[in-house]
């Protein structure tokens, strides 16, 4: 039976890793788009309005792909992890039902917003977008709280036969890991979106397109991203300290702490082995200090649990964590650079190096976010529900998961490629001055749908 465990985990990780990129855009893109819309209306700025309109068209594409890949995830709860869902569906399902409402409202109002550019007027149209941004955050809360619950399960009683009784929905919703995991993920969604969007315009500027359109397209997301990056650092740092307390084995694995002790060395990089870290840069005592602000703090080591209860791929975890923190710090550096120049010159730094840095920040942030999920998910192994249910006991008894995994990889690769092609061709057509629906925002409305020429053909 557990021969299916490996492909099931691979497929889950792959589909989640794909969905989460679109989910980030789904959570945060509407807010960025509304900022541009707001500026456009407030300052009567057609460039900002045009940005908002184009971004909403991009969101239409990414949300469609996000919705279908999200549906696959819902299927996978049954296809891959029936034992998990059978036993705990009634516990964590509570959160997914709430998520359902947010998805509904998000889908409905996003549609109204996207399709409303022509016939709804200025502020009325703006307000139809506001529920989208709110529901994005609500939806992210609900799903990520499920993950937090897997990390810190509570709000139920296990009977002698392993059956769940006495579900307490409020304890499930507001579990211990929610206060740091949920804000960290929502911030991550904003960072991913902001730096991705900014990087697109940075590339355009590097290619010599320095018009106002590109400058504003860079400025809006970059400003939001640079403000949020330090907040993310603080939240992440808090998360790490909480994990040292609540999920000590995960913490030990991501910091490569083999034996419980005080005055533990913090390693940057290096290879984790049974007898300590090989290579890497060691800073004696720093790990203890980070956990308890004193080098005397005791840090739990992997040796406190038997080998079968330790996470796999220790070095991967350690590197993933370091990479995430590295990118987080670099983003703060980028923000300082930007802020300094702005303070002195009221302008975006014009050097090629700054634009190059922004151009790579998008992909780097996505990778940091994926790395963070590897820390969370692989670091929880071998548990699917921390210290309650093992992943190997959760997996399906059906066979053929290697086949579906293969299909999924091929299909998603095509899907990703097609999405990028479509977005690029939209950008190209916009650059050539086609407006894709041949009407300016808030243009004069017409009566009934007149059989006009189709655009974009």
């Amino acid at each position, binding site marked *: 039976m557990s021969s299916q465990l490996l492909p099931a985990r691979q497929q889950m990780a792959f589909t989640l890793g794909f969905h989460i990129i679109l989910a980030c855009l789904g959570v945060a893109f509407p807010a960025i788009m509304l900022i541009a819309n707001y500026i456009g209306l407030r300052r009567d700025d057609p460039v900002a309005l045009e940005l908002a309109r184009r971004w909403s068209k991009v969101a239409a594409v990414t949300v469609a792909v996000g919705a*279908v*890949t999200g549906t696959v995830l819902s299927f996978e709860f049954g296809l891959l992890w029936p034992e998990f869902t059978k036993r705990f*569906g009634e516990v964590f399902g509570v959160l997914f039902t709430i998520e359902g409402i947010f998805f509904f409202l998000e*889908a409905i109002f996003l*549609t109204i917003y996207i399709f409303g550019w022509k016939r709804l007027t200025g502020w009325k149209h703006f307000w139809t977008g506001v529920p989208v941004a709110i529901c994005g955050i609500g939806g992210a809360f609900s799903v990520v709280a499920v993950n937090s619950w897997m990390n810190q399960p509570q709000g139920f009683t296990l009977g002698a036969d392993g059956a769940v009784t006495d579900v307490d929905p409020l304890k499930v919703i507001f579990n211990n890991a929610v206060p740091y995991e949920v804000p960290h993920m929502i911030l991550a969604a904003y960072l991913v979106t902001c730096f991705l969007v900014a990087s697109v315009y940075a590339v355009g500027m590097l290619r010599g397109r320095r018009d106002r359109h590109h400058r504003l397209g860079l400025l809006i997301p970059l400003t939001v991203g640079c403000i949020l990056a330090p907040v993310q650092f603080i939240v992440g740092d808090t998360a790490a300290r909480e994990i040292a307390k609540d999920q000590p084995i995960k913490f030990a694995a991501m910091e490569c702490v083999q034996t419980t002790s005080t005055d533990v060395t913090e390693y940057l990089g290096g290879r984790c082995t049974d007898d300590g870290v090989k290579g890497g840069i060691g800073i004696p005592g720093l790990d203890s200090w980070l956990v308890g602000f004193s080098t005397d703090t005791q840090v739990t080591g992997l040796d406190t649990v038997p080998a079968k209860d330790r996470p796999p791929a220790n070095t991967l975890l350690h590197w993933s964590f370091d990479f995430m923190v590295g990118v987080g710090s670099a983003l703060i550096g980028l923000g300082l650079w930007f802020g300094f120049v702005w303070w002195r010159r009221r302008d975006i730094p014009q050097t090629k190096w700054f634009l190059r840095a922004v151009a790579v920040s998008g992909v780097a942030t996505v990778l940091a976010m994926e790395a963070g999920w590897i820390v969370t998910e692989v670091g929880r192994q071998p548990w699917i529900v921390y210290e309650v249910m093992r992943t190997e006991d959760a997996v399906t008894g059906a066979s053929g998961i290697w086949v579906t995994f293969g*299909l999924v990889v091929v299909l998603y690769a095509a899907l990703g490629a097609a999405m990028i092609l479509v977005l690029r061709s939209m950008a190209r057509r916009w650059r050539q001055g086609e407006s894709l629906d041949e009407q300016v925002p808030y243009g004069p409305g017409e009566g009934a*749908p007149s059989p006009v*020429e189709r655009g974009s053909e």
Partner: protein
Amino acid sequence: MSTADAVAGVLWVGVTLYAVFGGADFGAGFWSLFAGRSERGERVRSLIDWAIGPVWESNHVWLIFVLVVLWTAFSGAFAAVFSTLFIPLSLAALGIVLRGSGFAFQRLAPGPRERRVSRALFGLSSLLTPFFMGTVVGAVASGRVPLGNAEGDPVTSWVNAVSLLTGALFVATSAYLAAVFLVSDSRRAGDGDLERYFTTRALGAAVVAGALGLAGLFVFRADARYIYDGLVGEALPLVILSAVCGLGVLALLRRGAHRGARVLAAGALAAMIWAWGVAQFPYLLPETLTVSAGAADPDTLTEVLIVFAAAVLFVIPSLGLLYALTQRSVLEGEVAAPRPKGSVEG
């Protein structure tokens, strides 16, 4: 009525709404697939694009709703169904991916060839996805899903007469429903030619769906006896109601009536789904697991009902707004209304 029964009712409301709205979307894809490459085929596809563009994403959330309520309130049944029916459900999931992305890409794809490929994928997956979902329903109805983790036969559970027939019935029903909806949409777009085009197709699909339904009765009698007994027993009034609504649609379409056909068609489908629900009650998995035995902890069930009440309060009015704006053609994207016959392609 117990809380568990109430939640089962909520689940069934979700199933009904998905069948009506999602079904009409699938059916639209079906007609897009068979519209051909002629000038009229192009117009058919533009009409479909224009009609379902603003609503498909919301329609599709009903499926998520059904899945989530199922695994939250009746997780044992969910696990049994998804593990035994791994193959058709995996195929349905892949179909959903192809369908949604095909639809989203078909009008934005860079060139005509890419657009054609997207359309073909959209059409094909619109046909296959409801088919596989139907086989799943047939497997449950005929008692081929035992409790537990993948305890049933991975293949014969859904490759059998009941399943295949139910799959075909799902395809035919969605095509029928979509055609009826598209008659109204053609009228809204002012295209009399397409109005006639879809009227013919609605009549044709109705005959096919009716014939499959009748054949289904015999197959169910032979192999899904519990459901059959229910359909000709307690659920008979609903079955009759469904037939009457269906015949009413035919009459209205033939007369070219402007009102009522859509509502009656949806009513025919809804009555059929509730007939099936009544026939299957009190079982989640016929003769294996009852609603009360398969239900979650009472606090969870109460929470589901509260969330459902919130959904009624917030989601239904929003959906109403969306449909109203669509019907009044306030919402318009890249796709303009299709041009009536006679205008030049270019």
